[in-house]
Each structure stands twice: as C-alpha cells, then as structure tokens.
C-alpha cells in the first residue's frame, strides 16, 4: 500500500473522530406536535382548541353513544335485544353499571375551555378581537355543558339530595398547564357547580353570535354546529329546571323561543308529517345545537362497533341492533302520534313477539354516520310547561298542546293540573326524546323512583344506584375525593 493511501486513511480516521466529537448536539423536534408557546400564539391556535372541545363531545363515551343510550336503558325506554355484554348491566341497574363520564375526555374538554377563557384575550395573541370574544363564548358554553352533565350524572340536583349528600363534581375553572396546577381537590357542592354553570352561560350569552333553528354553517356564520345565543339560553333554561328555579327556567325558555322564532302555538317546530324524516336531515330542522360528525372521526370499525345507528337500528344490514324500544314505551303512544313512527316493528332471534328498531338514528350520512342533535327546540315547550305547571297550569297545558299539535295529536284534558299534569309533561318528554338521553335524568331530577320495563326491578330514588360511581382509581389517588354514597 502506498504512503498516499496510508496517509489518506489516517486522515479519514482523524476526520471521523473529530466529526463525531463535535456532534454532541441533541436537538430534536416533535414534528407532529407543537409547543404550547407556538400553538397558542394566535387566534387560530385557540380556535383549534375550541374544535377540540366539540370533537371530544362527539366521542363514544360521551354524546357519541353513552349519553344518548345509557339514560334510556337505565330507565324504562330501552331493552336489550341481544346480549353482547353491552348495556346488560345498565338494563338491570347493576352495581356500578351506570354512566361513566369522569374521564379525560370530559375533563380534557373543560381544560380546553379553561385555556381559551384564560388566554385568548391576552394582548400577545394575534387575531381579530371580535372573533376572540366569540370563541371565548363557545368555551363558556361548552364548559357549562360539561359541568352540567357531570352534575346530573354524579350529583343530586339542589333540593333533591338524599341524606343531605350535596356534593357536585370537582370544579376547575383555571387551566392546567403544569403539573403543579393538577393539585388534589375536594368536590364542590352541587349548588356551587350550578352557580358556576349559570355564570358561564350568562357570560356565553354576552359573547356568542345568533343562529336560527336548523341553520347550516356558512362563510361567516356558525349555524347550529357551534355554540350560539339561542343554544345558551336553552341550556340555561334546562339548567334552571334541574335546579328547581322554575321562574328563571320559564323566563330563559321564553327568551330562547323569542330568539328562535318559536311561537306559543308551536310554529317553528317541524310539522307532524316531517317529524321522522327530520332525524335524517343535517342539521335537524329543530336543532339549535347539534354536533357534526364526519367519517374521519371514526376508526374503520367504529361505525359498526359503536355508532348509535348500529346499536339501535337495523337500517344497515351489518348493524348489531342490540337495543330496541321497551314494550312499555311503545304502549304509551296514543293513536296518531308521529313519534311512534320513529320505531319500526321487527323480530329478533330468541325473542318472542315483536321488537322495535329505531328510526331516529338512521345513519343517513352513510356507514352508520349521522349528526347528534344535542339541543332540540321542542324541549323549550316542555321545559316551560314543567316550569309553569304548579303556578300556571293553563300556560303549561298550552305549551304541551303546542307541541302535540306538531306531533299529530290533539290537546290534552283541559283541566289537567297538579301531579297528573306533571306526569303528562314527563310522558311527553319520554316520547319526544326517546333515545336522546333524557329519560333517567328527567325522573331523577324530579326525585322519582326509576321504573323498569318487563320484570326488572324498579330503582327507588333513595337507592345508591341513582348516582354513578366515581372511578376507583381516582378515589384511590386523591384522598380528598369523596366517593358517592353506597360505593365501597
């Protein structure tokens, strides 16, 4: 080997070693994520956070499935047609078979909202000031919705406490951005949480834009797929109703009806002939707040595995169809009630007699896909009727009749009042919102025992299973977190 070659190899080795030695930098970048400083430097970052709140609301362990189905099967509206293990415990109100939303999805949504509320109006955040206010309003609205749901699942409504147990969820209204923010907290009282929800909705009303019923989004308008003033008033009226603040509930409902162009005779609601079809329309013509879902939100098997359509309907040949209307529910419908038509009679292997498949969740967007109407205008009539029934039974009857006129039915008994009137209102709610996640909560907030279909045993209101259990892992982690009574 020549000297030249020897030299060049020596040089090569020296270069290798020097190059390696100088190479101590360890900079890497997480190319698919951002640091908080970059992500939240401008308005678009905060708006992306707002989209995260809505996205979370769509998940199957929240409105995407649990919040729609569990309140129905925990009460008397649904039955299990096929035992796949799902909702079997809920049907018999088994221990700990309840609604589980004490999770990172709902609390993560609250943290998204907290981040927006605290940060979006900062001077360093680049972007249009008016737009910032709107997004902040959305955050208030969604935080109110998250806390309202946590309250009705884990707490007694104020004034309806059993054994004076008055704890609500843990309240956090500042964002968690460091580990020290994630301190251990005690549960607030139910009233404290309701006051916060009320305040959030009032703040939202000041900031949000308007939308009309069933308005699809356009260039500069959200429509009903994002929070709006009408939705905030409507949710506020529902919150007051749960809270037992009947005058406030009536006022908020009336305001919402005015904003949305709903008259006392029912004008503004869909007519009877369109009731069923309205559920296969996007957005639902009665929606004031509706969550939009797209195929990309689901993994390839989520449609058949988890969608409302697959679980409750047989419109798709591959559907599971494991849940149908209880016979009790079907029997409550009066002749001519178009709401009966959201159930189709069919048969199932191993079940004697007919079973009923839903035509509310029809998967009309294809592949089991559809939107989720969360706040529907007809509820305003029922909220106001319930708020009025003790003080103004005539007005209550008028509200019921306005709704009934849109459902193919005549007016109710003109002297109906007191408990029978309330029973009628709850029955209308049961029929109107079957499979929309109201039934269990409507009974619970009125302190009623939970009736069951068939031979399943009724759950007394004083039974511990009225409230859900907080996950054991959280109880074990946080000494200050008190479990609901009866769960130990």
């Amino acid at each position: 080997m020549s000297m030249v070659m020897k030299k060049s190899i020596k040089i090569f080795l020296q270069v290798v070693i020097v190059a390696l030695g100088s190479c101590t930098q360890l900079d890497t970048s997480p190319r698919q994520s951002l640091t908080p400083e970059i992500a939240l430097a401008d308005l678009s970052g905060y708006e992306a956070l707002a989209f995260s709140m809505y996205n979370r609301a769509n998940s199957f362990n929240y409105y995407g499935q649990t919040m729609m189905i569990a309140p129905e099967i925990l009460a008397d509206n649904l039955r299990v047609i096929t035992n796949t293990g799902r909702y079997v415990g809920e049907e018999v109100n088994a221990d700990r078979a309840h609604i589980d939303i004490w999770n990172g999805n709902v609390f993560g949504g609250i943290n998204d909202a907290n981040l927006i509320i605290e940060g979006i109006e900062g001077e360093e955040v680049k972007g249009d000031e008016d737009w910032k206010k709107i997004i902040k309003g959305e955050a208030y609205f969604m935080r109110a919705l998250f806390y309202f749901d946590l309250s009705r699942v884990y707490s007694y409504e104020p004034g309806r406490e059993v054994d004076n147990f008055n704890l609500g969820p843990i309240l956090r209204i500042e964002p968690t951005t460091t580990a020290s923010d994630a301190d251990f907290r005690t549960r607030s009282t139910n009233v404290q949480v309701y006051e916060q929800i009320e305040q959030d909705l009032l703040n939202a009303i000041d900031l949000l834009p308007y939308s009309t019923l069933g308005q699809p989004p356009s260039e500069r308008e959200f429509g009903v797929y994002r929070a709006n003033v009408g939705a905030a008033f409507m949710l506020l009226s529902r919150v007051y109703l749960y809270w037992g603040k009947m005058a406030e509930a009536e006022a908020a409902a009336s305001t919402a009806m005015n904003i949305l162009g709903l008259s006392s005779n029912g004008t503004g609601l869909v007519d009877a002939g369109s009731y069923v079809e309205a559920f296969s329309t996007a957005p639902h013509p009665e929606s004031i707040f509706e969550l939009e879902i797209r195929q990309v939100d689901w993994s390839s098997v989520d449609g058949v595995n988890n969608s409302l359509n697959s679980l409750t309907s047989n419109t798709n040949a591959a559907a599971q169809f494991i849940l149908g209307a209880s016979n009790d529910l079907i029997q409550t419908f009066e002749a001519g009630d178009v709401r009966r038509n959201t159930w189709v009679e069919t048969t199932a292997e191993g079940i004697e007699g007919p079973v009923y498949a839903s035509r509310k969740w029809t998967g009309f967007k294809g592949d089991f896909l559809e939107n989720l109407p969360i706040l529907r205008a007809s509820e305003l009539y029922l909220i106001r009727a319930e708020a009025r029934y003790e003080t103004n039974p005539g007005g209550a009857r008028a509200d019921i009749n306005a709704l009934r006129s849109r459902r193919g039915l005549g007016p109710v008994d003109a002297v109906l009042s007191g408990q029978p009137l309330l029973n009628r209102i709850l029955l209308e709610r049961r029929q109107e919102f079957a499979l929309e996640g109201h039934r269990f909560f409507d009974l619970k907030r009125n302190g009623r025992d939970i009736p069951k279909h068939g031979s399943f045993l009724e759950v007394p209101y004083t039974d511990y299973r009225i409230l859900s259990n907080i996950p054991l892992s959280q109880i074990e982690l946080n000494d200050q977190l008190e479990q609901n009574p009866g769960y130990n």
Partner: protein
Amino acid sequence: MKKVLLFGLVLFFTSSLALAQMTVSGTVTSSEDGIPVPGATVLVKGTTIGTATDLDGQYSIDVLSGSDVLVFSFVGLRSQEVNVNNRSIINITLVPEITSLSEYVVRSYGDQTRREVTGAIASVKGEVFEDLPMQSLDRAMQGRVAGVQVSSSSGQPGGTLNVRIRGVGSINAGTQPLYIVDGVQVAAGGLSGQGSQNALASINPNDIASIEVLKDAASASIYGAQAANGVVLITTKRGANDRTKLRLSVQEGIVQPMGLYQVMNANQLASIKRQAYINAGLNPDEATEIFGSPGDRELTDTDWVNAMYREGRLSVYDLSMSGGDEKTQFYLSGSHTFHEGQVIMSDYSRTTGRLNLTHKPTNDLTINANIALSRQITNGSIDRGNFVNSPFVSAYLARPNVPIYNEDGSFAPYPNAHLFGYNIVQGVMQELRKGVSYQTVSNLQLTYRILPWLAVTGFAGIDFADNKDENNRPSTIPAFSAYGGSSFYSDSRLINTNANGNFNFDKKFNDLHTVTGILGYEYKYAIDERTSAEGRNFPNPVLRYLQNAAVPFSVGGYYTEYKRAGFFSQARYDYDDRYTAEVTLRRDGSSRFGSNNQWGTFGAASVGWRLSSEPFMENAVWIDNLRVRASYGVTGNSSIENFQSRSLVGTGGQYLGFGALRFVQLGNDLLTWEESASTNLGVDGTFFNGRIIATADVWRKDSNKLLFDTQLPIDSGFGQITRNAGSLRNQGIDLDIQTTNVVYDKFRWSTNFNISIFSNELTELYEGLDSLGTDLIVGKPIEFFYAYEYAGVNPANGSPMYLDKDGEYTYFVGDEDRKYIGSALPWNYGGLSNIFSYGPVSLEVFFQYQYGNLAFNQDLYNLAQAGSLGQDNQTIDQLNFWRQPGHVTNTPKPYEGGNIPGQSRYQQFSTRLLSDASYIRLKQVTLNYSLPAQFLKKVGVQQGNIYVQGLNLWTFTRYNGIDPEVNSVGATSLEASTYGTYPSSKQLTAGINFTF
C-alpha cells in the same frame, strides 16, 4: 506476537473437559517467536470436549478414539486441525491469524469479544442453537443463560419475545435489554402492525457465532445509556485464513397446536342455555329458538375450532460459505425459512443474506464490513386481543349450531346478534393481513494501529427496516359489505444509526503489569416514520389497491426521532494474571430528557482475583481454575417516548373539517436518566480436570429515579405525568453448572443446568406514598394480582360466592374486598440440558422452566361463565354447573345475563380465573447421527449429520389455559391484553447438513 500472547494470558476461557479412552498431551507454541501459548483452546472436533493450555502452553486432553481430530485455536492465531492418529503427544505451532489485530484491539467496544472479565457475562455459542428451527436470536437464550428470562409475547411464527435480564428494572420505562449486533445497536420489538413480527428475526441464528449477555454494571456500563436492562452482544461468524468451506443444511417438519380449549357441541350449549333462561326466569323457548333443542339429534353441529386449526409445514434451508487468505477473509450465507402457523392462513417466511468481509491492506490497517439483508413476511392472524376477527377468540366463542358453509359451499352468514355477525372461518380465510419487512443490519469498521500499543478505530453501523403492512377486508365478508370493503396500507421506516470512534491501548511492563484501556465517543440517531392510508368501496372484492377505491377513507402518519451521544472510557490493570481491576466511566446525553438534564454520568469498578494462579494453591490439583470477582456500578435507562419531557400540543382530531389541537401531554423539564446501581459478587471455577465447570453470581440491582408515569387527578384534564420517582430492588442468584457425568467407552453424558432465583420489590414510591391504588404497593413486586377471592359456589342455591374483606362469605363484592393474591413474576427460572452420546449418535434433551408466578387467563372471562353470557359458546367443563341444592361444584348455576339480582356479576376479576402459571417444558429434543467420515469422503463431503428434533414437545403446568408462556408477561389487570393470545406451537422436524 508478544502482546497477543500476553493478552492471551487473560483469555483463559473454559470449555468442557472429559475423561476418556486415551489422553493426548503436548505444547502449543507460536510460530512468530516460538514462545508457548497459554490459554489456547484445544477441542475435540464435533464435540464439546475441550481444554485450555496452561501457562507453559501445555495441554492434556482425553479423546474418545485415536481417529479424533483436535482443533487448536487462540485469539490472534490461526486455528489448526490435527488428526490424532493414535498419537499421545502432539506439539503444535500456530501461525498468526491475519485478523488478529481487529480481534485484538477492538475487544472493548463494538466487537467486544470473549475475554477475561470481572463483570457478570454469560454466553451462548452458536453451535448450541445451530439448525434449531427458531426464528430469532432472543429465543436462543431461553433457558440457556442464567439470569435471562425469555418468554414469548406471541406464539405467532416469527413473533416477538419478551426478554428480561435480572428481574424487572423499571415500572414505566422499557425493560428490554440493549441488543448490539456486530457493534450495531439494533431496535428490538415488533415491525409490523398486522400481527407480531420480531425485528431481531432479521438476523439468521445460523449466522451467529456467539451471544454474550452482559448482566451487571461492570460489564455493561461501557454502554452507559440503555445498559440498565443489560446488554446482549451478538457476534456473527467470520471467515478464516483457510480453504473455502461450504455448509448446507436442510430441514423439513410440521407444526401442531400444543393444546386447544374443549368447547361445547351444539346440544351441550343448547342444554346449558336452556337452563340459563329458566334460572333467570326467562322463557326457555326463546333459548331453543336461538340454540336449538338440547335433545335434537339433527341439530347442526359445527366444530369451529377444528376448522380453524391445522397441522402446518415448516422448512428451513441454509447455505453458507467461508474462507479466505492472509489478507482477506469472508463469510457468505443465505437462508430461507417458511413456517406455517397452527392456525389457517397464518404463515411466516424469511429470507436472509449476509456477507462478512475482513481485509487487511497493510499490517497496520484492518477493514471490516458486515452486510446483512433480510426479508420477513408475516401472513394471517391477529396475534392477541379480544377481537371478533381473531381466531383465538371467535373460533371458541362461535355458536356450534351455526354452519360455516352453505350447502353450495359458499360461506354461510353468521347471525348478526353475535360476534358482529362475523363468520370467523370466512373472516380468516378472506381477510388479508400481511406485513412485509425488509431490513439490513450492516456496519463498516476501520482499525489503524498507530503505535505498537495504540490503535484507533472508526465505526459506523445502521439498522434500517422498511415495513409495509396491508389489511384488506373484502366486501364478501358481510361485516365489511356495507361500505364495499376496505384496504389499509401502511409504510413505515425505522432508521437506527450509530457511529463511534475510539482509541485502544494495551501495554505490558516488566512482564507482570498489563494496562489496557479505551477512550471513545459515540453518537446515535434514530428515526421512526410511518404513513398510512385506507380506501373503501371497491368495485370488485378481488381489487384491493387504493387506486380502485371509490372512497379515500382516511390517512395517517407519524414521525419521531431521538439522539444520543456519549463519551466513554475504560481502563484495566492486570497483575500477573492474578489480580485484575477495571474502571469504566461514561457520560451520556439523550434528547429525550429536559434540556438542562440531558446528560448523565455512569460508571463501574470491578476487581478479580484468580486464586488458582497463586502459589499456595498449587497443591490443589483438582482445581483447574478458580476465580472470584466483585463489581459495582451505575447504568442508565432512557427507554421512554421520544418527547416525553415536553409539553405538547398535538392533534385533537377535527371538527367541521378544521383540525383541532389540544394539550396531549404535560411536560416535565426536570426529567432525567433513570439509574440502576448494581452490585455483583461472582465466582468461576473449573474442577476435576474440567468435569465440573461452574459460575455463580450473587447480585443486587437497585433502580432509582425511575421514569415513572405518576398519576394526576383526571379532573385536571391529564391522567399522568412522567417524573423521576420511586425505587425498585431486584436481587438474586444466578447459577450455571456444566458437568460431564459419565464417560464410559463411547458413551458420554453431560449436563448443563442453570437456575436464577430472584426477587423483585418496590422499595419506594413518591411523596411518601406506600401504595398507588392497587396498582403498586411498596414492599411488593411490581407485577402482582389484586383480585376478589372466589369462594366457590353456594351448594344451597348455585350462586358464586366470594370472601369479603373480613373473610366472610358474600355474593356481592365491592372495591374494598379485593386482596393481594400473589406475584405475576416467577421467583425462579432456568433450563436443564442433558446430552447423551454414543459414538456418532447423540441425543440432546432440553427442559426450560419457570416457577412461582400466577397468571390471569382472560380467555376464560368469556369462555367459562356457566353458559350465562349471551350466545358465547363455553368450555366443556362448564357443564359441571350447579344443578340442585346440595350439589357441590365450582361452576355457578347458568343464569342468562350473568347477573343474579342483588349479586355481583359473574364476570369478575377473581381468583376463579387465576392460576399458577409455573411450568416446565420439554423445549427441545434432538437426535443426531454423524454420518461416517469414510463414506462421506467418497462423495467429497467433509462432515455430515442427519437429525430429527422436536420443540415444545411436552409441558407440565397447572395453568388453566393453553400456553403459560405467552401469558407470562405479567399482566396485572384486565386492561392488559392477554386475551386470545397466539399460543406457542409444537414443532417436529427432520434435517440434514453437510460441510464440503
């Protein structure tokens, strides 16, 4: 030559010795200077009988017959083979090996070769596992190395394994060792998203010369970062300055299931379901409508399990060539393996090629290049998880009164109400799940000797894997027909590079003091990248490529990277082959940690004393070698996600077509290295002329500053944050004994036995906590079962009973009634190998075992619920259900829905489904016949063997499932997926090999 020799003094490695018919003795000298060579190996060719020369280069060895061939070898010198020819004295002169420099100077880093060690090192030679039909090198260590626990995480052919060296050293950070193949730090783990595919299987085990396991800090700390879990060094074969040799090996065999659950036939299921309906107050006619009438002899009776399992084929072909001259040596090999699974449509194939080259252009320069390529294809099954399209779940659960096929031979529709309407046989036959990976583990190394005692080395290596996964779900399967079928493709790339430069020195003073050392720098960079796409609605089920998809359904992808840099040094002093001391220091930085906490310093010190070289031991002739050693050191662990120290805002999906962002991780800028401090006391001995060779180590490993995913209250919006918190202690004893028990005439019996006894204990949590819920408890091992205690069935009414927290019988259990049941970690494990030979015939019988761990069998969570769960078929033992008051049984009464009002649900995480997963397995039996040399010579063959062997032939266990091994990864909760795991298989093969 002098230096080679001196280094050789400390290269006194031991092999089996034996007594036999005749003794051959002599002296081994070096041709370079005529000096005797101490520590040279003398082996009887084709056996494990061997010895080493003493300090005067003298040896004495017993051979079986006068026609045996002796192989003399020594590092730095070229091996020689000599026919004994009935001589009793054979003196040999060895000539320098051309590769001596490379083998000699790079000993400490990259190519670390066997050497006199003061740390705890165990090794497995390639011959031990040559021609065994196993796909990956990690499997080769199973049961053969004390202190190394190897268990399958899947029985899928070519699947991944779980390797733990000396206990479990971390809670949340990785516990797998660092694998280094010829200096290349390779990524272990799975390659494919469609089933289990082992990245380490890219190395053909037949190409491996030896596997060395560095168990303690003293031996591993030169690798600083990642060394906390131990290091596995793999050295592949190299050529020699010799004539060209060709080796051909062919093996064919069959694969069978080791066992299957026995499930009910149609009448049995109909009968238990009828009872379940009656007991639950339901109309039994409704059960009959679904399951048929229990007494109906005409009932369709489908054996889904039989339709799913099969006897598979197994073929292994291997061809290698090696040789060279003074300047250049090579090793060239190719192999092909095809291995069908025990489940239909499941198979694995691998093709490998390798070229190892050494070239020495001048006396001072050595160039080494290793180039290896492989292709692995995994076809078929989901390897674990509770999925309806998994054969390990649905074949057992499917209703026997539903047919697989229509009369015309087409697939029959399965009822929608069960298993999502999934006909599992159709699903497995028609769904394509395929992972194809191409991989190379290659390197280039240059070593230049600057001075006689100083050399410099530059090394660069790459582990590059390209994987393409395909999952096609044709519309012919009803579950996928609604959207016209789907095809999912993903492409991923793993790029792992490491480079180092180092100086080596080696100097001897006054013939007594030897000082060696190394100083170097290393850099590592790894990238993991993936892109995926799914399309739907294909006009014809035969079409499966994305351009035919009418609907572009979804896209996905990710990118992640990390970097690591380290400075390392090691110095070693040896006095007269009696006293040895070694110090290692290493400083490493990792991009994974907080910007101010990236760097950590690790190191170790060790000492050794060879008692047998002391003058006062000269009279103890029965001691061939006796050495004690002690070490202490600290190594690091950084096996966490690449960006775990940072607060990250990542994707939150979409809403209204706009991308959503959210905080996906709460960062911790203080995050730094997890440390493991280990102490090792060891003794190595060879006694009675090599009849007994033993190594024993007592060790303790304290892991501190654990990279711990500490829980945050979920109401904060975050579930956890990674912190350095908590401590763990692993301690134990490793024992390895090789004995030659009987040598009589041509008969010979030798035994290799190893056992590891260890304990694992969580010594500290954080913030003074003594438990973390029921996940972790201070004073207990980190993997255990905390469950309800099942108390059998009440003979009075058939209800399942439990013992509550006060030890009272109850039907209804709450959170407080759960108890600590036992550890999921075995407290001892090991292997036992016996080799019997008689002339040309040899028989190896190898057992592998582990003892003392419990396992929860999730399969039974659905399969063994007394016929109470919807339409799920049940194991046949559930027919022993409670029938009438007074009936004593362990299986409750069938109760449709599995929930008697006022009682806990049947499906509980209770001791009913827990069992002792200790096992002893007859892992391998090989019967080998060496073909007569005279006959072979006539056909131009040097050596030939014909053999039959079996793997996993027999298992003794009380485990309540199919394979205790795949369930032994220590799952502690229901979330961990030990559901429907692909069990190991039994393999029977016959093979032949020739060396030309």
